[in-house]
C-alpha cells in the first residue's frame, strides 16, 4: 500500500512538471559569475547568481498554448495598457497563426507585459539585462568570447540579415552553456529593459550612465565587441513595455531552487 502511494505521488509530481513547461529538461544551468558589461565603468563588475535559462526562445506553438489557457492574453482581449496595436499582428485570429508563419519559429509581436506574464505562468521569469548579457557573451567554446573577432563578426552579420524571425528555433549550435539562438533569430525582452537610460528624455535626467553613449563606449571602441552590445542596449533604451515588435521575442529563466 505504501509503495503504491509513493508511486502515485511520484506520478503526480511528474504530471505537474510536464504541466509546467518541463522545468528541467528544456532549461540549462548557468553558473553565476561576475563580468564587466558594456556600460560598466572600470571598477563596476556585475555579479550574476546561478540560474536556469530556457535553452530556446519561446516558440509560436508554446505561445498559442498559452493564450488558449489564458484567454485574457488573446489578441482581441488583451488590455491596451499591456500591449499596443501590433500585438500578435501575424496571427489570423485569437488562436491561429497566419499561414505564412511557422509553429516552431520564435514568438514575436509580444509586449513586455505579455512576455512577463507568460514566464510567470510557467513558474519562471524574464532574465535581467545582466543575466541575459552574461550568457550572451559565450560562443561555442568560451564563456566570455567577447574578445574574439569571429564572435563579434557573427553577431553583426546577423544584425544585418533580414527576416531572421521566421527561422525555426534551435538552428544554431549550443553555446558554452548549452543555450541556443541568443543572437541569431530575434532580440529578446529582459525584465529590467527599462533600466537603460539612453533615450532622448533621459538627457534631462540624472544620467549616470553617460558612459553608455559618450564617445568612450560607442564611437571610440577599439574592437567591435562593444558595438554589437551597444546596439542591444540602444534598442532596449528605445522601447517601452507596450511595444510588440516583429523581431522581438523572449525566453524565460528561473532561480536555482534552494536545497
Amino acid at each position, binding site marked *: 500500500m505504501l509503495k503504491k502511494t509513493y508511486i502515485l*505521488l511520484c506520478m503526480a509530481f511528474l504530471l505537474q512538471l510536464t504541466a509546467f513547461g518541463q522545468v528541467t529538461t528544456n532549461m540549462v544551468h548557468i553558473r553565476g559569475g561576475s563580468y564587466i558589461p558594456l556600460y560598466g565603468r572600470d571598477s563596476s563588475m556585475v555579479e550574476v547568481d546561478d540560474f536556469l535559462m530556457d535553452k530556446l526562445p519561446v516558440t509560436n506553438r508554446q505561445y498559442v498554448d498559452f493564450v488558449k489557457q*489564458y484567454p485574457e492574453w488573446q489578441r482581441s482581449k488583451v488590455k491596451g495598457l499591456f500591449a499596443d496595436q501590433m500585438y500578435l499582428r501575424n496571427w489570423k485570429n485569437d488562436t491561429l497563426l497566419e499561414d505564412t508563419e511557422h509553429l516552431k519559429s520564435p514568438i514575436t509581436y509580444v509586449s513586455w507585459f505579455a512576455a512577463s506574464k507568460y514566464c510567470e505562468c510557467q513558474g519562471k521569469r524574464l532574465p535581467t539585462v545582466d543575466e541575459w548579457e552574461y550568457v550572451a557573451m559565450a560562443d561555442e567554446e568560451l564563456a566570455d568570447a567577447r574578445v574574439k573577432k569571429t564572435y563579434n563578426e557573427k553577431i553583426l552579420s546577423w544584425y544585418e540579415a533580414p527576416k531572421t524571425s521566421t527561422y525555426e528555433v534551435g538552428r544554431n549550435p549550443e553555446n558554452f552553456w548549452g543555450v541556443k539562438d541568443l543572437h541569431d533569430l530575434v532580440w529578446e525582452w529582459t525584465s529590467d529593459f527599462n*533600466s537603460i*537610460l539612453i533615450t532622448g528624455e533621459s538627457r534631462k535626467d540624472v*544620467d*549616470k550612465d553617460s558612459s553608455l553613449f559618450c564617445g568612450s563606449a560607442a564611437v571610440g571602441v577599439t574592437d567591435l565587441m562593444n558595438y554589437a552590445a551597444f546596439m542591444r542596449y540602444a534598442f532596449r533604451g528605445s522601447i517601452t513595455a507596450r511595444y510588440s515588435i516583429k523581431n522581438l521575442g523572449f525566453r524565460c529563466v528561473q532561480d536555482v531552487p534552494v536545497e
Partner: protein
Amino acid sequence: MKTYIIIVAILVLGLVSCKQNNTAVAEATETSNESETISDMSIYNLPSTWTNQNGKDIQLKDLKGDVLVMVMIYTTCKAACPRLVADMRNIEKRLPESTSGKVKMIFVSIDPETDTPERLKVFAQENFMDQEPWTFLRSTEENTREFAAVLAVKYKEISPMDFSHSNIISVFNDAGELVFQQEGLGVNSDATIQNIEKAVSEM
C-alpha cells in the same frame, strides 16, 4: 482514499501559482462590473499591492475617483529627487481652489528595499507632506518595475544608495488613464496644471 486526497492536494497546489492571476483578473472584472468598468488603458488594471507611509496596504484601484499626480523617486536621493519633490509641491500650491479634494499627489519609491513604510513616513514628515493630498507608496521590486514600465519611467540601481532615473511627473484622470507627462527637472509646470484642471473638470 487518503492517497487520492494527497495527490489531488499536490496537483491543486501546483496549479495555484498561475491560477491566482486568473482569479485576480476574474475578481477585478467582477468588481468593475459592479461599479464602473475599468477602461483598457487604466492603471487600475494593475493588480499589484502597495503600502503607504502609514503601513496600510492598498491597490491602485483604491485610488480611483480622484485625479492622480504621480512621480517615482527614492528617499535617499541627493540630486534630482529634492527638486522633483519641490516640483510636486509647486504644482500642488498652484492648483486652483476648484480642484481641492479631487487631486491626489503621489510619490512612488523606486527603492523599496530602503524605503520601508517607516522610512517613507519620516520622509513625508520632514517634507511636511504627511497629510492629504500627499501619499507615499512602495511595493515589491517586481511591481515597481512593472509600474515604471507603465509610466515609461526608466531607472537603474547604480549602487545600493544611488539610482539614476527619469524625471517624469505623470497625470492620470479619475479613470486611471494617463493624460499627461511632464519631463525634466524644474521645468515650467503650466501645462501640467492645465491638464490636472482639465481632468478634474471632466470628472
